Structures are given as structure tokens and as C-alpha cells.
């Protein structure tokens, strides 16, 4: 789109207007920022506890006091994350009660069809690419994986924090199970975020709309055509909405 060559003489330079469409509200961006920070802190303080034999872990956990400190930081970050979860769920329930919860993050049959279509496209079995609404199936997978992942981490985390209290009314066997789940889920989630989420928002295309709140109309049209049309954007004539810049 950007013109790099100098324009020929006597030709008017076309005025390029860039339209930005709001994608995330300030509240959502704050939620993401807090989730992001909490995840970093929890991983930095949790993984050394899991991989205690590793030399980098012993570098961090060099004294018993350090272990205690790292655990305290882990607990504080966990409380912040728990507050975020309560806010997120509370807000969703409130919106649901007012019948104003947007359903566009819910997984539908269309997502399964999109995923199938995309897989065929990636395998060169079909030229056709799926067109998406506000959230494509990849983004929904990210959201729901993290949704349940955080849920597992919060629940098992509190079980491990207060094991003596929980076993007053729950069977003791949940303690080692919670330890296994907390530890495994953390690694799976960390690897998943790096492979899946970071690939999609940083490598495939740089998409910082979660931080800026805005997505330009061109990206919107290319990657979220149905949402673009719903918002009243122009109707492009073809389905070739590939990666062409």
C-alpha cells in the first residue's frame, strides 16, 4: 500500500487515509496486561521451583530465604490473578444477566468448519480460505485454552497453598493430584503460549491490537472480513483475502 517510488510529475499524490477500528476496550486491554504480567511473574517464580535440579534454578533459589521470597512473590501474583479471574467471570455473568454478553468468543460449529477449511488450505488441497468474524478459531483456541488453563492453575494452586484446610472436607488424594496438575499444566501452558500465541501475534503478523486497542481497517478487512462487513465496511468483490499486503 505504501508507495516507495517517487510519484511521476503532474500526478496528484493519492491521499491515503488509514482507518482504525476499535478492537479491544480499555478494560480488556488492562485485563490482558495484568494477565500477561501475572503469567510472567508466576512462570518466573514457579518454574524454578519445579525444575529444582537445574543449575539456573539453583542460581535463582540460591538460599532458603530466596526460596521463601520466591514463594511469597508467587503467592502475591497468584492473588492478583485470582482477582482478575473473579473480575472477568463476574463481568461476564453481569453482562449475561443484562443479555449484553457478546457471544462472539463462544465456540460454534462455524469454527470447526473454519478449522477444517484452513487445514485443507494449508495442505494445498483447497485454494479457498475461511473468512472470519471478530475472532477467528485460532484466537478462540487461545482464549479458551488460557481460560481453562488459568482455571486449573488457580484451583490447584489454592489446593496446594492450603492443603490441610481442603482435606477437611475433600479426600486427601486431591493433594498429589493437584501438585501433578499444577506442575504439568504450567509447562504445557507455557509451551503452548510460546508456540501458538506468540507465533500468531508476533511472527505470522505483528498484531499489537491487544495493547493499542485498535486494528486498522485493512487488517480488519483481510483477517476479520465478516466483522468488517458487519461494522459497515466496504464489500470487497473477491474471497482472495490472503496475506497480500
Amino acid at each position: 500500500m505504501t508507495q516507495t517510488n517517487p510519484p511521476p510529475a503532474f500526478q496528484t499524490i493519492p491521499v491515503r487515509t488509514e482507518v482504525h477500528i476499535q478492537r479491544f476496550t480499555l478494560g480488556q486491554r488492562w485485563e490482558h496486561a495484568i494477565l500477561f504480567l501475572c503469567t510472567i511473574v508466576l512462570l518466573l517464580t514457579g518454574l524454578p521451583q519445579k525444575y529444582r535440579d537445574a543449575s539456573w534454578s539453583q542460581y535463582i533459589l540460591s538460599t532458603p530465604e530466596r526460596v521463601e521470597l520466591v514463594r511469597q512473590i508467587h503467592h502475591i501474583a497468584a492473588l492478583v490473578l485470582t482477582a482478575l479471574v473473579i473480575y472477568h467471570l463476574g463481568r461476564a455473568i453481569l453482562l449475561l444477566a443484562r443479555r449484553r454478553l457478546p457471544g462472539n468468543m463462544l465456540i460454534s460449529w462455524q469454527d470447526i468448519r473454519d478449522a477444517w477449511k484452513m487445514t485443507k488450505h494449508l495442505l494445498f488441497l483447497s485454494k479457498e480460505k475461511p473468512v472470519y468474524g471478530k475472532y477467528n478459531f485460532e484466537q478462540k483456541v487461545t482464549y479458551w485454552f488460557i481460560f481453562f488453563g488459568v482455571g486449573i492453575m488457580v484451583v490447584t494452586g489454592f489446593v496446594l497453598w492450603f492443603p490441610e484446610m481442603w482435606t477437611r472436607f475433600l479426600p486427601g488424594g486431591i493433594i498429589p493430584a493437584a501438585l501433578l496438575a499444577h506442575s504439568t499444566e504450567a509447562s504445557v501452558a507455557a509451551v503452548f503460549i510460546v508456540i501458538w500465541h506468540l507465533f500468531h501475534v508476533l511472527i505470522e503478523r505483528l498484531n499489537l491490537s491487544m495493547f493499542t486497542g485498535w486494528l486498522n481497517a485493512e487488517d480488519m478487512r483481510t483477517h476479520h472480513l465478516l466483522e468488517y462487513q458487519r461494522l459497515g465496511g466496504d464489500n470487497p468483490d473477491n474471497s482472495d483475502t490472503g496475506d497480500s499486503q
Partner: protein
Amino acid sequence: MARFEFRRGWLTVSLACIFTILIAFGIATSARAQDQTQDTEAYCLGCHGNPDLSMELPSGETLSLYISPDTLSHSVHSPLGIECQACHTEITTYPHLELAAQNQRELSLAFYEACAKCHSDNYDKAQDSVHAQVAAAGNQAAPICTDCHGAHDVQPPDQPRTEISTTCGECHSAISEEYLTSIHGEALVQEDNPDVPVCTDCHGVHNIQDPRTSQFRIESPEMCAGCHADAELMAKYGLSADVYSLYNLSWHGVDVSVYKANWPTIWHESAVCTDCHGVHNMRATDDPASSVNPANLLSTCQKCHPGVGPNWTGAWTGHNQISLERTPFVYYTDAFYATFAPLVLWGSVIYVVLKILHMLIDRTRRSLR
């Protein structure tokens, strides 16, 4: 007296003869062998074979000077030709030198040093022991070689093996009695079992360390593992040899291994084997008196986790592999992640790789067009 002088003269003459002959033939025998082989026993027993021979020490104690020829001849040394003067090097003549010792104990403390002449390795080891530390702190009762091994009646210390626990029990009587009620002690006494540990198997022989230090505590699971992780030995008694490796995966075990690796000198309360099984009185888990018998397990846990409810014992997976029967929650969690983790991770890796390949192929095609 005249008889003694005569015999001494005769002895001197014969020794001189032997010595001259040895020199003449240029036979170089080792110094140690010369020291040990001294035909002094019969000579000394001439007086010391008298059961009534005794003297009074400055402390007022009566010191018997009688050495039973029978005891002496059945000790390990005498039949090997290691006789009186091998140890009593300061006694070369009669009358003997005046004793400097004020009491019997001082006498023993002065004489036992002779053991180091031949047994220097074990003597040096003993100098590193907690017993030597106690002695250095001024406790004269701290054991020296002869307290455990005997002086004139030295016998192989481990024949039979019960002899070892009996010897230690002479001072450590309460612990010895406790040990004898344990599964190890019972098997030792009742069947002279060669596999069960006696005191020295866990505490060491000569360089016995203080078992109350954090270092000893933190290393103790490894010590138990010496036998309890030995599959062949455990199979003999129908015991699991995985107890140690599974302990190492448990909350306690991970904690302990970190302290062992990084801060062995810092005291840490995380449970080691003996905290639950008992120190000297460990019993089989199906013994109703065992501290880890299901009937007693909760109160054993409550030693460190006061006030926990009856469900708490279920949190301890024991030394068991993950199984549906014993640990269903862990089993299902494990089964879930065994499927979920590879599914999600491989799924996303494959998808992302496909996307990258597609992008590269697309770009190449466009540039060739």
C-alpha cells in the same frame, strides 16, 4: 628374685644371639614383624598369671594385675605371636616404670594408644568420630579402642553379629533396647540374619559421626536406600525396592534433596525416612505397633502437621507407583495430561509448521511469477 634375674640374663643372651645371627645372614625382616613377634607372653605371665596379683592406684582403686592365660590365648593377637610387649612397649624391665596414671581410666587412656602402632588406619578414623570429639571436650568416659574391642581379650568384633549391638548397647543401652524391638533387631537376634543392619552399618564403624547434625539427617534417606533400593536384597523379603526413588518424587523427598544438594548444614524439617518409620524402632508396616501402620499413620503425620483431619493421610501416596486402586485422583490426572499435553502441543506445533511452510511456498511462488 634371683630366679628372675637369672631368666632375664638368659633371655638377653639368647636374644643377642638371635640378633647377631639375623644380622650375619643379612635377613631384612620388616620392623613391624619384629615388633610383634616377641616371646614375652610366658615370661610376663610368670607374675601376671597370678589371680591375686593387684596393686592400689593413687585414686584408691584396686587394679587387678591378673591376666588370664586362657583369655589371652583365645584372643586374636596371641595366637598370631603378637604378645605382651607388642603393646606394652614401655615395659622393658623389672621392676617396671612407675605408673603415672591416677586411676584405672587414666591407665586405659594411656595404654590404648598402643593400638595405633598397628591399626593406624582405624585409629585415625576413630579420631574423626563423635567419640573423639566428646573425649576432646574433656569427657574421659568417651570410648577408646579397648572399651569396644577389649584389651587382653580382643575378639573378632562381629562374631556373631549380635555382638556389635551388644557392644554399643553397653553405653547406649536405651537405644540398644529400642533397636532390639525393631524389625532389624528382631531378625538379628532371632535368626542371626546377615542382611539386617546392626549399629555400625548405619553409624559407621570407627569414624562414627554425630547423628544429630543436619548433615546426618539430610543424608539419612540415602543411607536407608543402601539396602532398601537394592532390588535383589528387597526381593528376598518381598519388599519394594522403589521406596527411595518414589520418596524422592514426593513433596518431602524433593525438599530434602534440594537441601542435601545446596544447604546440607542448614537444619530442615521436611520428613526423612526415620521421621515416619522411627529411628531405631522401625517395624514392618503391617505390624500394629508400626508408626506407619494405617492405624497409626494419622498421628504420625500430626507430629509435623498438627490438627490435620483423617483425610490427610490420603494425601501421602506412600511409596507407591501411580495406580487406579491406590491413587485414583493422581491416576486420572496423569492419564488426562498423558493425552492432553501431547495432543495440544503436537497439534499446535503441526499447525504452526504447516502455516510457516504455506507462507514460504506462497512467497516463493509469488516471487517466481
